[in-house]
């Protein structure tokens, strides 16, 4: 889905992903983890990508046959000059807005893998992967 980079869409994005993932019968904890990670990634796009101008955020969700959920969130905004620096816990470029600088740290903690690809001036794509626990291990 594609939506505007407005802060009101942060709830829309994480709720839409959670609703889609429900068909895999996730645990409450897993749904919470996914919602949190999506919220972080989308908030990054809203806060940083377009510098006060409203741009578009694209979000794709799919899953594999072994219940790995793959979520891709991308923007065509300013891009990230130094991805390593951006991913450091507590690093933030906007402390005045009470940003904790924990976005990527949270994504990494709540997902199995986080991949960031970015081209300055072209945009950023974050890919989150999370393996859901098998619900019926003896089946």
């Amino acid at each position, binding site marked *: 889905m594609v939506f505007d980079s407005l802060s*009101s869409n942060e709830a829309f994005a994480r709720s839409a992903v959670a609703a889609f993932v429900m068909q895999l019968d996730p645990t409450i904890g897993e749904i919470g983890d996914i919602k949190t990670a999506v*919220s972080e990634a989308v908030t990054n796009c809203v806060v940083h990508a377009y510098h006060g101008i409203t741009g578009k955020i694209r979000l794709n969700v799919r899953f594999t046959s072994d219940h790995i959920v793959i979520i891709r969130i991308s923007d065509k905004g300013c891009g990230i000059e130094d991805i390593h620096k951006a991913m450091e816990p507590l690093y933030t470029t906007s402390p005045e807005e009470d940003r904790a600088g*924990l976005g990527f740290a949270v994504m990494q903690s709540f997902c199995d893998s986080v991949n960031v690809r970015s081209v300055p001036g072209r945009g950023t794509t974050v890919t989150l992967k999370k393996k859901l626990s098998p619900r019926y291990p003896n089946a």
Partner: protein
Amino acid sequence: MKSKMNGSELTLYVTGEIDHHNARRIRETADGLIQQKHPTLLNLNFSGVSFMDSSGIGLIMGRYRTMKLYGGRLKVTEIPKGLRRMMELSGLSGLDVLERGFDENECN
């Protein structure tokens, strides 16, 4: 947002989902009340919080700084189980703002 003044202690009942969008409204309410009432203790009651991303951590750290500036203290109480991982990850436990007992119960 409901609030309660008890002597010099102010309790704010934070409800709903704390994300970047909602944090602004909560921050403005909290800071307005702090400036108006100068509490010695700000108690953020989180029992009604159903979701929180790292914006909630920013919100807590910001209010911690504001209360310190006024010579007061901050406590975050009745933290729902679902928010524990986020709180642990934030390093907030080192600031002694999370309700006592939070670190001991069922975290491991």
